[in-house]
């Protein structure tokens, strides 16, 4: 097939639109979305096919080796211009107060393909703004009826909360009777809406989108490892958007991840190190005083070393840690403390996995990296790893002299552990995000960084290793766990060559963990790499 004078090979089942995409030729469209069925209703993706008298919609025209296609001919330009005029007939043109402005296909297409002025003299018919879901508003009058939202809710989530009501010019998207768009994937319809019709209440009027800085990263709220864009203004996260990765999450993410960023901005985050002052009463919480990070690390290193000498040191590793952090923790124990008592923090499950119609899964496990931390600890320290219950039993029985507990759970009350066992430990060091019940019992508490504040890698449930990126600065004196661990490692006399940056740590890790062999941060890129075959059957991606 020839498109704009360039040849493209025709495969079975391919459309003209597919051919254009293959060649990187952009054809404007509203209803077409690669993850959804073909609607063919917006009539904007029209192209000219030589020999056909009318423009053809590229999304539903089967490719043919005999076709000669033009995407910018006079016929196409005229047809698009006409269609853009139709789209704007009843559109309120309220870009100045519309959140979509700046990332709006209708705006962009009007600018590129539209006619600049309208010949429509009649009054516009107002359409109500509707509250269609927990986080979703529908500005009905801005809608172009592409039906991406209804097709998504039908085909991908399978929940069918929205539908089209009425006919002709009066057609509009409405809630299906008795249903609100509250499913765990509902937020995606605000992303795939090509115009300003479906808007997120969470982001409403927060910022013009062109002031946002976007950082590619990975979601930290379950082990699916959905690729995300962290969008920030100044040092605040304003919203999270899914980032396309066909090997992992497809085009979508869930609402837990989408709105889970709020803990990062939380004013109750730990911002400095502290130590315990005096003893705790039976059920009471000991008093604390702030200390410098340096002093805190010094105390932790010394206490771990002396307990190690007595043969009674252990750690509990958090599944919120990056692979690099798990590696540093493992090296501290192997190289300096000569111990292999590092347990994985037990999974912090939500009720059950939630699996949607087309396979997209929100996992019950609330932590992102159980698999990666386990891979790394097992490779360095040898398996099987002790369980956190075994470590806590040691503590209860008085055998344990010092415990380094990396919690770092974004949910301050989310980690369920036996607190009486923690009370029995002579020296408890905790690394955490919030002053939760575990932190309250610590002798030394170190403030950790959230996943949005650090560099590193996570390994998702299918063994896909992906990079996190530094999107915002940590509050106060909070530090990424890798920095804290590096300092402890340094003070205990560790191998400094692996310490400089997470990228160096990862390169070293790759020499020690067999399945990660040869990987580097650069090699992972923005899409990550799979280190294991996906479990059968089908992967979670959509």
């Amino acid at each position, binding site marked *: 097939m020839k498109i704009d004078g360039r040849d493209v090979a025709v495969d079975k089942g391919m459309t003209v639109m597919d051919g254009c995409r293959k060649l990187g030729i952009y054809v404007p469209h509203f209803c077409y979305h690669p993850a959804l069925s073909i609607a063919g209703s917006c009539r904007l993706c029209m192209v000219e096919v030589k020999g056909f008298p009318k423009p053809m919609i590229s999304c539903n025209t089967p490719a043919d080796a005999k076709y000669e296609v033009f995407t910018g001919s006079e016929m196409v330009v005229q047809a698009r211009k006409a269609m853009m005029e139709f789209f704007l007939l009843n559109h309120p043109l309220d870009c100045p107060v519309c959140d979509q402005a700046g990332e709006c296909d209708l705006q962009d297409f009007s600018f590129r393909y539209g006619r600049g002025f309208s010949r429509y003299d009649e009054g516009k018919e107002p359409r109500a703004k509707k509250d269609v879901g927990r986080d979703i508003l529908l500005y009905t009058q801005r809608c172009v009826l592409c039906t991406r939202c209804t097709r998504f809710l039908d085909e991908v989530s399978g929940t069918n909360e929205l539908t089209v009501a*009425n006919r002709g*010019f009066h057609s509009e998207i409405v809630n299906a009777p008795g249903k609100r768009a509250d499913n765990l994937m509902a937020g995606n319809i605000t992303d795939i809406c090509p115009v300003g019709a479906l808007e997120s209440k969470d982001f409403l009027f927060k910022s013009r989108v062109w002031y946002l800085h976007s950082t590619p990263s990975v979601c930290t709220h379950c082990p699916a490892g959905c690729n995300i864009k962290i969008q920030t203004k100044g040092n605040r996260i304003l919203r999270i958007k899914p980032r396309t990765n066909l090997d992992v999450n497809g085009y979508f993410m869930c609402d837990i991840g989408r709105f889970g960023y709020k803990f990062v901005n939380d004013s109750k985050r730990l911002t400095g190190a502290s130590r315990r002052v005096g003893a705790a009463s039976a059920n009471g919480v000991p008093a604390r005083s702030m200390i410098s990070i340096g002093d805190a690390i010094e105390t932790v290193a010394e206490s771990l070393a002396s307990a190690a000498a007595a043969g009674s040191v252990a750690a509990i590793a958090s599944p919120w840690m990056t692979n690099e952090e798990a590696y540093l923790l493992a090296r501290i124990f192997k190289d300096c403390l000569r111990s292999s008592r590092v347990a994985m923090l037990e999974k912090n499950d939500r009720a059950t996995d939630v699996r949607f119609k087309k396979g997209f899964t929100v996992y019950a496990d609330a932590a992102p990296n159980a698999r990666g931390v386990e891979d790394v600890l097992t490779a360095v320290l040898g398996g099987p790893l002790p369980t956190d219950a075994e470590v806590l039993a040691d503590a209860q029985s008085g055998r344990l002299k010092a415990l380094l507990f990396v919690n770092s759970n974004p949910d301050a009350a989310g980690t369920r552990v036996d607190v009486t066992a923690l009370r029995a430990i002579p020296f408890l060091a905790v690394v955490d995000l919030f002053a939760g019940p575990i932190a309250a019992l610590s002798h030394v508490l170190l403030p950790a960084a959230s996943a949005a504040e650090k560099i590193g890698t996570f390994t998702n449930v299918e063994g896909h290793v992906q990079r996190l990126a530094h999107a915002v600065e940590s509050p106060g004196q909070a530090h990424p766990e890798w920095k804290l661990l590096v300092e402890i490692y340094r003070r205990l006399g560790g191998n400094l060559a692996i310490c400089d940056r997470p990228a160096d740590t990862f390169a070293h890790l790759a020499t020690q963990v067999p399945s990660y062999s040869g990987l580097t941060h650069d090699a992972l890129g923005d899409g990550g790499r799979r280190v294991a075959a996906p479990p059968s059957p089908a992967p979670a991606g959509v």
Partner: protein
Amino acid sequence: MGFDRVLTRNVGKPDSRKIDTYLAGGGYSAARKAVTSTPDEVVKIVSDSGLRGRGGAGFPTGKKWSFIPKNDTGQKFLCCNADESEPGTFKDRVLLEHDPHLLIDGMIVSAYAIQATRAFIYIRGEMHAAAKILEGAVAEAYARGFLGKKIFGSAFDLDITVYRGAGAYICGEETGLIESLEGKRGWPRIKPPFPAIKGLFGRPTVVNNVETLCCVPPILERGASWFASIGTPNNTGPKLYCVSGHVNRPGVYELPLGTPMMELLDQYAGGIWKGRTLKAVIPGGSSAAVLTAPECQALPLDFDSCGKAHTMLGSAGVIVMDDHTCMVDAALNVMRFYAHESCGQCTPCREGTTWVAKILNRDVHGQGLETDPDLLLDVCRNIEGRAICPLADGAVAPVASIIRKFRSEFDHHVKHKSCDLGKAAVA
């Protein structure tokens, strides 16, 4: 008026809708004959007869049947399109109400030809009486063993279900009909795939008009060459013409295809009423382009001749307008219908039909602009050929042709802020 009626031969007989009346006239012999032939033989007879679809498009029926994949042994469907809602069209209703067994006979033959064991009659919601009559007729046919398992002692099974629509014009479009029959919104499908490959419930499906199916039994009874001898070459067989509007005797007339327009109007429909003169005719239901009186003079009413005259025979809904008709108002009348009936799925039709209706509305009420006719023609051009289904083209054809052929009336409306014709003629 020497034409021997074929399709309406039983109309007017007492109890014409009863199975015994139909059988007394040799009824169901076509179905009997079909099930003892091979499907290919049936398709060939119908192809040889030259029968073209009576729903509007005039597509050769035998050819449509032959698109059904032969090596597919799975379920196939036949749908009878009885959603007659084209303005100016009321021919199928006559057949449904007066001779339902002719249709059932034709459906058995057609279903056998495409080897469909399941058939539906999708009937327009407003046709209460016809639906009741049909249901009664289907029950009679079941009772005689003409429907159900092993009909007429053959190995062929056929079940027919009468399904009532809810009155949407768009459900007369074949894929809109299929969607509606599946219980969904009557939104026409994008093609490909075509219904012959993926139709009802994703299976090969043929959708035929009532009149088309009623043509099939006579073809089997009396032969392809007999059928082909009626009408003109490539436009064969009898046709029901629906005459409405400003004539003395509006009604349904069965005549051979190719009957001259003026013969139909003057000899059958009793000429223009109230002693007035002919101004314009829409020959094929409101989706067809308008013809001026001079254009009507020598026009044979068949598919090809109408096509040559840049209009279409369509459903043969002949809408007659006398010289008291305001053509601007006529255009508004037509476009208001399409704006109301547009399903809203695709952009040009959803937005365009309403826009055109709004402009026409201001023109009718003397608030139009000099530039309106050109604007209307341009908007029509932007709708035409750009939509999913033919509704949009059908909306544009009459209006654009009225503007082109009666432009002076638009100019008069703008200049004088009113119509130069008596409003009473329209009311």
